[in-house]
C-alpha cells in the first residue's frame, strides 16, 4: 500500500452496485397518514407511500407501469393509488385493480409492492435485491418507551447526504471522532458484531472546554457523564439507549440513528429522540427536553456531514493501535450486500473489540486543560 518512495496510497474503491438487504426506516408513520400519497426517493428509484382504507401504510414503486406517471402525485381512491396521468388504479399488493376507461386490465399489469412494517411508530420497508421476504430474526425490535405515557413523543429530523451510506455506519467503531467532531470525551469504547447486529458500548465525559450553544466555556470541572448502548439491527437502523446527566438529574433517552440510500452516492440520514419524563415534568416539557437533546444530536450530525461530503471514500484506512475495528465492522456490513446464501459463517461470527482509551484520555485531558487555560487567559486580558 506504499509506493517506491514509501508513500501510502489511498484506495478509493467504488460504492457497491446494489443496495443493502434489510429493513429501512422511512420516518415516523403518522405523517404518511394524512390522506395524500407521499414520494420517497430510495433504492435508486421513487416510491409512493399511501394509507389504504384501513389505515395500513402501503409502499409501491412510484412510477406507473402504464406510461410512467408519478403515482405520488396521484390520488388515493379506496384501497388503491390512482395515477394522475390516466387514472390507472394500483392496489396494495401491486396489482392494477382498475382502468376506468378500459374494459379490462392487462394480466401483466403488476408493479412492485414493498413489504412494510410499522414498529416504534415508524414505517419500515424491506429491501432485498434477491426478492426474498425477511427472516423473522432480523425484524426491528420494539422500543418500550415508544409505547409508554412515561416517555415524550418522538422528535424527527433528516438530512440528505451526498456520500455513500457506509460513511455513517463507520461511526460505529470510530472512538476518536467523538472527541474531535462531537465534542464528547470517550473513556470507554467497545464493539460487538454478531449475526445482523453491530453494537457499540460507549461512556463519555462532558467537555468542560466546550459548550454546544457556543457560550463561553466557564471552565467548570463538572463531569457530565453519558452512558450509551447502541446497536445497528441490520444495515441501517440503530437504536441507542442513553443515560445522561440533565442539570444534575440522570435522564434516560432513546436515540434512533437511521438512513436509507437514495443512490449509491446519496443517502437520507434521519434521527429521532424520546426521553423518559422526569417526575413533575408535563408532557410538553418532556417534549422540549427531547427537542433540546435532538438539537444537540443534530449539531453533531451536521458536523459529520461536513466531514463526509468533503472526504474521499477510502477502502484501505490506515489505522493506529488506538483506533477501533474498522475492517471488522466493514466485513460485518458486507453481509448485507451479498446474496444471503453467499454470506460466509465467519463474516457474521461474533467479534469483540475493546479499545484501550488510556492514551487517548491522557492526551485529551491535556488538550482540554490547555483550551481552558487559553480561554481564561483570553477572558482575563479582555
Amino acid at each position, binding site marked *: 500500500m506504499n509506493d517506491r518512495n514509501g508513500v501510502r496510497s489511498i484506495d478509493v474503491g467504488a460504492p457497491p452496485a446494489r443496495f443493502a438487504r434489510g429493513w429501512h426506516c422511512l420516518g415516523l408513520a403518522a405523517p404518511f397518514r394524512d390522506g395524500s400519497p407521499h414520494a420517497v426517493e430510495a433504492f435508486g428509484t421513487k416510491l409512493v407511500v399511501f394509507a389504504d382504507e384501513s389505515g395500513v401504510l402501503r409502499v409501491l414503486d412510484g412510477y406507473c407501469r402504464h406510461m410512467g406517471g408519478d403515482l405520488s402525485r396521484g390520488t388515493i381512491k379506496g384501497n388503491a393509488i390512482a395515477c394522475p396521468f390516466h387514472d390507472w388504479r394500483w392496489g396494495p399488493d401491486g396489482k392494477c385493480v382498475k382502468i376506468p376507461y378500459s374494459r379490462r386490465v392487462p394480466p401483466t399489469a403488476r408493479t412492485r409492492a414493498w413489504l412494510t412494517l410499522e414498529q416504534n411508530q415508524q414505517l419500515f420497508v424491506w429491501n432485498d435485491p434477491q426478492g426474498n421476504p425477511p427472516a423473522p430474526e432480523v425484524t426491528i425490535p420494539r422500543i418500550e418507551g415508544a409505547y409508554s405515557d412515561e416517555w415524550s413523543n418522538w422528535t424527527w429530523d433528516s438530512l440528505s447526504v451526498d456520500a455513500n451510506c457506509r460513511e455513517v455506519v463507520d461511526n460505529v467503531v470510530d472512538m476518536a471522532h467523538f472527541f474531535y467532531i462531537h465534542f464528547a470525551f470517550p473513556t470507554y469504547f467497545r464493539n460487538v458484531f454478531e449475526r445482523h447486529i453491530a453494537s457499540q458500548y460507549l461512556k463519555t465525559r462532558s467537555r468542560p472546554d466546550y459548550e454546544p450553544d457556543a457560550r463561553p466555556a466557564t471552565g467548570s470541572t463538572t463531569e457530565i457523564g453519558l452512558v450509551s448502548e447502541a446497536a445497528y439491527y441490520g444495515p441501517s437502523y440503530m437504536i441507542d439507549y442513553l443515560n445522561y446527566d440533565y442539570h444534575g438529574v440522570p435522564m434516560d433517552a432513546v436515540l434512533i440513528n437511521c438512513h436509507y440510500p437514495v443512490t449509491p452516492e446519496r443517502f437520507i440520514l434521519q434521527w429521532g429522540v424520546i426521553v423518559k419524563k422526569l417526575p413533575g415534568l408535563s408532557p410538553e416539557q418532556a417534549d422540549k427536553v427531547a427537542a433540546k437533546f435532538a438539537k444537540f444530536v443534530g449539531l453533531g450530525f451536521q458536523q459529520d456531514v461536513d466531514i463526509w461530503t468533503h472526504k474521499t471514500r477510502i477502502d484501505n484506512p490506515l489505522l493506529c493501535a488506538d483506533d477501533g475495528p474498522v475492517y471488522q465492522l*466493514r466485513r460485518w456490513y458486507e453481509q448485507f450486500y451479498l446474496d444471503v446464501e453467499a454470506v460466509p*459463517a*465467519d463474516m457474521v461470527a461474533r467479534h469483540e473489540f475493546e479499545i484501550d482509551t488510556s492514551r487517548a484520555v491522557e492526551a485529551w485531558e491535556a488538550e482540554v486543560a490547555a483550551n481552558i487555560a487559553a480561554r481564561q487567559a483570553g477572558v482575563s486580558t479582555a
Partner: protein
Amino acid sequence: MTNAVQPDWRAQSDWQAQPDGAARPDERQSRYVPVRCRECGATVLAAKFSVQHTSVQWDAAAVDQCAEFAARRAIGEQSPLIERCGAMRASIETAALEGQLPVSPP
C-alpha cells in the same frame, strides 16, 4: 509468531485481488492465540495490543458452548446484545497475566 489457529478471516494478508470491493483484513498485525474458558471450555481467539485492549474472535460453536450466553439466552436475551461473557474475559485476562496471551502492539 505463535502456534495460533489461523482461520480464514485472517488468512488473506495481501492487499491485492480483493474481489468487488470485498472487505479487507485488518492491516494491524494482531497475534491471535486460542484461549479456553476456564468455566465452560469454549475456545476463542484473542489478541491484545496493550493490557487494556482486547480483541476476541468467536465462532458459532464457541457462542453455543458458552455457559454464560446459554444462561442468558434461556431468559430471552440474544447473544449479539450481550456485552461480554465475564468468565471468558477473566480467562483472557488470566492468559495475558500468565504470558500465554502476548501483549503485542500492532
